[in-house]
């Protein structure tokens, strides 16, 4: 959404008014970034209104989302960009694009010629028409050409339609190819006119907040703001705004770091190859963790300042995924049970102890006061907001295409380099600003190239256009026949602390009848070829490590993919989480993708054999 629409947020989808929901990735109804909102929207699509909407899920794994969908498309892992562009190809050829949108409110749809008519740069339209015909896309994705044409017709012919990325995990994200895939999927929405439209993509709006006071920057701050980020975002990783897991590699490579605060982060456990953080921690003189539970990373901290749990503290939560603005005010429902301080309160006290000018910049005595300051203009007084626990302006107001509101809030709002002119970028000017000046060798150091992936000469290159990049897998297919998919369950979720809840452990494996441990999901044909029966003990081994667990035969899964549920295999966190199951993250490729600093969740191949 950022590189095309210029909005640095997860997209919000108006599911309630969609007639056709095309979900890339199977976490639509599972543990995504805002599961309640997606489930609620889904159930409205089905039964909350007179006409029942259609849902299609595209993922190598069926999961719960694929099971509830009208159609499950078991795509070849890592090829979603090709499918999205294949659909775009059919939509364009069939004349089903929203021409008002593409002709008047987009950039880069048509070719850019120079004065004499030579094409300097292919536009999205001709690029897609020339490279993503259904036959070629069928070869790449394994989805039959007839299915591609049918889905394209259904998508463009049943408006309002929306193509969604659930935004978390699965085999879609995690390499730069994943970024291009996300762009391609988002472009599908633009093609059919679903940007800031009923039943389409919404831009998350925010309530009016009181501005933080303008303060003079002192020398320490000036130095800090000018310094290179420890995670290399913006420098080593030119496309990144943050690259959390790269902190370990850069510290190990010699970048100095004196103090590390761990807030809501358990990198030793939750990052691919997280064990290398232990080595990195050795080089950091002072580590503070705010973990509420002694997790794998907090164990290495010099100081653990546990934050009170969500029931014991103040916090603000801005609405996500709904479009209309709102803020939830989390308040203590009981006073903190132990001697704990919320992180906000902690930093306010530190600021006061440091003294001026830092103390002057944080004039609030408590975090509650700071929140009260910030929410002063939200539209209701503090007493009202506190009583209700939330304040919102329900009712999303669509912007008229090209209006001031459109330019300010809908398209281009967060662009840093490309102009904020309200044009939707089929050709990403933001990417062009960052990568366009690099020569071929610099690009290839980032794992990119100007040509398209079949080596066809491409005027201007494909680097700023959404396109299919084959996944750079680690592990040769001959030795490691399966792609490893570490899946987040609705039961255990992504947060380490949940693994320490006995009730969740007992309900963790609903789909396969498992409890209190890990399992590896494998397709029946694949299992047969390996001589494996359901519930056999197996080793699952990647080039980075191996783990022993139980094989479970699952029909709703491609034969070349295996699934390992996340959030087991802890060695800390608590007595019920500890020493139970295996941690899939330890098997995944620890490298950061070179251009955008993405952690590699999707490009590890594994082999499976009887234990």
């Amino acid at each position, binding site marked *: 959404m950022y590189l095309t629409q210029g909005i640095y947020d997860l997209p919000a989808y108006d599911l309630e008014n969609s007639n056709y929901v095309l979900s890339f990735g199977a976490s639509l*109804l599972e543990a995504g970034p805002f*599961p*309640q909102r997606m*489930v*609620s929207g*889904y*159930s409205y699509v*089905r*039964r*909350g209104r007179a006409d*029942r909407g259609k849902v299609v899920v595209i993922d190598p794994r*069926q999961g*719960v989302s*694929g*099971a*509830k969908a009208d159609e*499950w498309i*078991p795509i070849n892992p890592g090829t979603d960009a090709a499918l999205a562009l294949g659909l775009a190809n059919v939509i364009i050829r069939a004349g089903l694009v929203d021409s008002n949108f593409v002709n008047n409110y987009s950039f880069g749809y048509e070719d850019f010629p120079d004065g004499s008519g030579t094409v300097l740069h292919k536009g999205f339209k001709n690029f897609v028409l020339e490279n993503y015909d259904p036959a070629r896309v069928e070869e790449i994705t394994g989805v039959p050409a007839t299915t591609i044409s049918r889905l394209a017709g259904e998508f463009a012919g049943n408006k309002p339609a929306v193509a969604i990325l659930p935004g978390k995990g699965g085999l879609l994200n995690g390499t730069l190819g994943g970024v291009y895939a996300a762009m391609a999927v988002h472009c599908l929405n633009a093609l059919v006119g679903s940007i800031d439209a009923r039943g389409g993509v919404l831009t998350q709006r925010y309530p009016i907040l009181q501005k933080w006071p303008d303060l003079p920057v002192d020398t320490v701050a000036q130095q800090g703001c000018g310094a290179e980020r420890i995670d290399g975002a913006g420098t080593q990783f030119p496309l990144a705004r943050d690259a959390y897991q790269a902190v370990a590699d850069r510290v190990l490579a010699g970048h100095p770091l004196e103090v590390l605060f761990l807030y809501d982060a358990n990198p030793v456990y939750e990052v691919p190859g997280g064990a290398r953080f232990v080595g990195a921690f050795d080089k950091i003189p002072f580590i503070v963790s705010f973990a509420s539970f002694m997790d794998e990373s907090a164990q290495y901290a010099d100081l653990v300042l546990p934050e009170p749990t969500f029931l014991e503290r103040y916090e603000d939560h801005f609405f996500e995924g709904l479009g209309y603005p709102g803020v939830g005010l989390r308040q203590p429902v009981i006073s903190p049970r132990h001697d704990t301080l919320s992180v906000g309160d902690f930093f306010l006290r530190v600021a006061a102890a440091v003294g001026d000018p830092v103390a002057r910049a944080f004039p609030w005595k408590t975090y509650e006061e700071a929140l009260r300051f910030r929410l002063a203009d939200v539209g209701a007084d503090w007493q009202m907001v506190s009583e209700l626990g939330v304040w919102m302006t329900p009712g999303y107001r669509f912007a008229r295409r090209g209006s001031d509101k459109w330019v300010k809030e809908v398209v281009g709002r967060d662009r840093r380099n490309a102009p904020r002119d309200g044009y939707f970028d089929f050709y990403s000017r933001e990417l062009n600003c960052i990568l366009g000046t690099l020569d071929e060798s610099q690009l290839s150091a980032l794992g990119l190239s100007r040509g398209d992936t079949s080596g066809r000469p491409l005027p201007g290159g494909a680097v700023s256009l959404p396109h299919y990049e084959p996944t750079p897998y680690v592990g040769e297919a001959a030795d490691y026949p399966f792609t490893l998919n570490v899946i987040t369950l*609705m*039961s255990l979720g992504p947060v380490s602390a949940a693994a320490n809840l*006995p*009730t*969740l*452990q*007992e*309900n963790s494996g*609903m*789909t396969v*009848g498992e*409890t*209190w*441990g890990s399992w590896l999901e494998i*397709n*029946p*044909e694949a299992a047969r070829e390996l001589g494996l029966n359901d519930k056999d003990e197996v080793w699952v081994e990647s080039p980075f490590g191996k783990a022993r667990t139980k094989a479970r*035969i699952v*029909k*709703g*899964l*491609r*034969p070349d993919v295996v699934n390992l549920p996340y959030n087991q295999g802890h060695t800390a966190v608590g*007595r019920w989480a500890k020493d139970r199951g295996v941690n899939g993250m330890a098997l995944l490729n620890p490298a950061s993708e070179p251009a955008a600093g993405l952690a590699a969740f999707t490009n590890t191949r594994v082999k499976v054999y009887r234990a």
Partner: protein
Amino acid sequence: MRWSMVIDLDKCVACQGCSIACRFENNTPVVNPAEAVKGRAVRWNDVFPMPINPTEETGEFPNVKTRYITRPCMHCDNPPCVKVCPVQATYKDDEGLVRQNYARCIGCRFCTVACPYGVRYFNWYAPEWEEPMSEHLNPDRIEGDGDLEGPAIRPKGVVEKCTFCIHRLRKARARAEAEGRPFRADEYVPACVQTCTGKARFFGDLDDPNSTVSLLAKSPRAFRLLEEVGTHPKVIYLREG
């Protein structure tokens, strides 16, 4: 009044919110992991794939049909469990709830075997809550006069099952009485109905022809589980699609 639940499987996403809410509302003990493997986990509300094990009907890759169902106690109008209980620890009350009195139960488990839906669970061991887990227990209970029901902590050796959150019904009735007004059927819902993320569960009085459950029961999508065995279950499902 005849209490009934309608569950719309087209809105259910098998998230298990219902199961978790039920467990905390009703003080369901977590069994030892070794017991869970034997199938002894207590699941008043259970969410599972239908059928549990893949069969020919569930298809072959890539045409695999997987369905999930969520299942509380059916509170049958013709309950087989009541028929076999030798001590009348389980009985159907005058509002259609199939009750379970822990004080009378002798743990013979005839009811558990008789129930074709598998909604009944036996306490093979005394339920345990390690500190500090015991601090989240719901203090509600139905007690008195040889009676012990609902969320009350169960002793070893008794059978337990979904009560349609009868303690909530009692509280709602008591509140209406205290306020000097008649009790209305829509004043109480079980915890699973309240929690359901997809708003797939409905609850109310089947004897009221205008209640939501009565109207939904007439839907062409409506069906009940194992209708052919004659139990007359009062949980009505609306099929997907």
